[in-house]
């Protein structure tokens, strides 16, 4: 029950926020899902991967295309966006079933992600090419999402449900298998756990969560363009997971909240963005490699991630 206290408290935010800060809070909700999903692969599975922005993009494009071309309402495209992300996560990692691991798998995800982004640019007829695609007005079961406040409550609901599901997953045999692979894959296999399949599963689950984040992003920003899902975006995803804490669900939330608003500050100075996030990553790797979550857990030991549940 304690879990739901955080979203309940957050539900009061619109009382004090102006439209701009409310937009930022909504964007934080999107990035909470991005970081939570990415952390499943990067932190829990311990597998370096580069396809996360592509997964984010495929969710956003799936939602935008279904809404713009097929006229589907927003609530109906959320699940397809997640499934498209899961399918892309599956494809990015499927070579794991043929024994591709660690660096090789990371390189495959790099190539796969860039390939997807290339297809957003060159699939003009459905994606709008470099100009992108405008997202029609969204509605959620008849409620028009035309204000930041309306979007906030819908996003908060979706994020709460998904983060709870990921938390359930991590504290089960599935979560343990994924973390066990990170710590010692050979030993994991000796416990009758099919490691290749769990690697692919982790990627697909990650893709599902990040894909849904993409659909929320599309609705929030109102337009999807290939540039939103490139290498500039990728460093932000890496930074959120690392600054929050590799492998920590709570850390992902912290990392997303801490960093979402920052890119806005660097927009006017070319190069500042990359320098800042590059340097931020270096500082955390040197000084606090377990991220903010580990700092927080020092004061509040209950925050240590558990991979079982007895309640």
């Amino acid at each position, binding site marked *: 029950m304690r879990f739901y206290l955080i979203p309940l408290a957050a539900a009061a935010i619109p009382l004090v926020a102006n439209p701009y800060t409310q937009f930022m809070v909504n964007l934080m909700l999107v990035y909470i899902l991005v970081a939570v999903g990415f952390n499943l692969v990067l932190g829990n599975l311990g597998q370096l991967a580069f396809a996360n922005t592509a997964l984010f993009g495929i969710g956003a494009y799936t939602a935008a295309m279904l809404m713009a071309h097929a006229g589907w309402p927003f609530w109906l495209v959320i699940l397809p966006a997640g499934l498209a992300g899961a399918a892309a996560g599956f494809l990015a990692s499927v070579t794991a079933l043929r024994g591709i691991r660690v660096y090789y798998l990371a390189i495959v995800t790099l190539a796969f992600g860039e390939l997807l982004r290339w297809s957003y640019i060159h699939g003009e007829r459905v994606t709008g090419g470099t100009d992108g695609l405008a997202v029609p007005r969204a509605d959620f079961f008849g409620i028009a999402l035309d204000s930041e406040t309306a979007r906030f409550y819908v996003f908060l609901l979706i994020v709460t449900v998904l983060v709870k599901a990921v938390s359930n*997953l991590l504290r089960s045999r599935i979560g343990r298998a994924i973390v066990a692979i990170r*710590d*010692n894959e050979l030993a994991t296999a000796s416990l*009758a756990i099919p490691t290749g399949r769990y690697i692919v599963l982790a990627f697909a689950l990650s893709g599902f969560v990040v894909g849904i984040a993409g659909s929320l992003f599309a609705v929030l920003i109102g337009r999807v363009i290939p540039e939103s899902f490139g290498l500039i975006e990728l460093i932000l995803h890496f930074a959120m997971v690392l600054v929050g804490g590799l492998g920590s669900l709570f850390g992902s939330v912290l990392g997303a909240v801490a960093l979402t608003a920052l890119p806005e500050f660097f927009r006017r100075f070319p190069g500042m963005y990359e320098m800042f996030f590059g340097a931020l990553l270096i500082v955390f790797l040197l000084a606090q490699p377990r991220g903010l979550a580990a700092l927080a857990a020092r004061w509040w030991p209950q925050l240590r991630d558990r991979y079982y549940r007895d309640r």
Partner: protein
Amino acid sequence: MLELKDVSVSFAGLQALSQVSLSARAGEVRALIGPNGAGKTTLFNAITGYVPIASGAIMLNGAPIQGLSPHEIAALGVRRTFQNGGLFGELTALENVLAGLHSRIDASFAGILFGTRAARDAERAAVARARELLRTLGVAHLADQPVKSMSGGQQRTIEIVRAVAAEPPLLLLDEPAVGLAPPLRAQLVELIRRLAGQMGIAVLLIEHAVDLVMAAADAVAVFNGGIKIAEGTPAAIRADPAVLEAYLGHG
């Protein structure tokens, strides 16, 4: 239970094991001894599917298991420990043992995702079972510690608990006594005897310490240079001149 017939393994043209035949029986502890590089761990790796065999057959309850992958062989009830330690360092002892119970937890994917009562009950039962195992084997106090913060001996014990959690009919222990203080070694001997005697597990044990082997094993197989050079009861092996040659001859 387990039957190896003329098993050979080679790495890049080098013969690591040649024509080894060996068996393991329920309730019996069979020790594998021999100098470093004799091929004992390679034999474990071959049985558990970590290295392919070049020729021969490995039969488990009459069915061939060579060519299966490690997780498939483990699913058939063959569990092992690793010479260099195979624990999941970031996880607690409890979580490690729970990973050993992975295939015993009957919770569906959807049930886990939505946290249904059935899935939570299955998890709770597994946690209770894991705690009980840790208690029976005398390490209940370590349950909630991350294993990377434990001593070498404690880690060895947790790894054995994890390996036997799913009640495997066959257990392969690779040098479980390394780094153990003498009183703990006596406990380990007692533990191994209990696994075989009370739980009826067939145990294959790689060990260098002769005293431990003599105390724990029902039978001993001696390896040298990838070949099994002798096999018999501990007493017979101790008197075997070929064994003395292999050990003493190598200093």
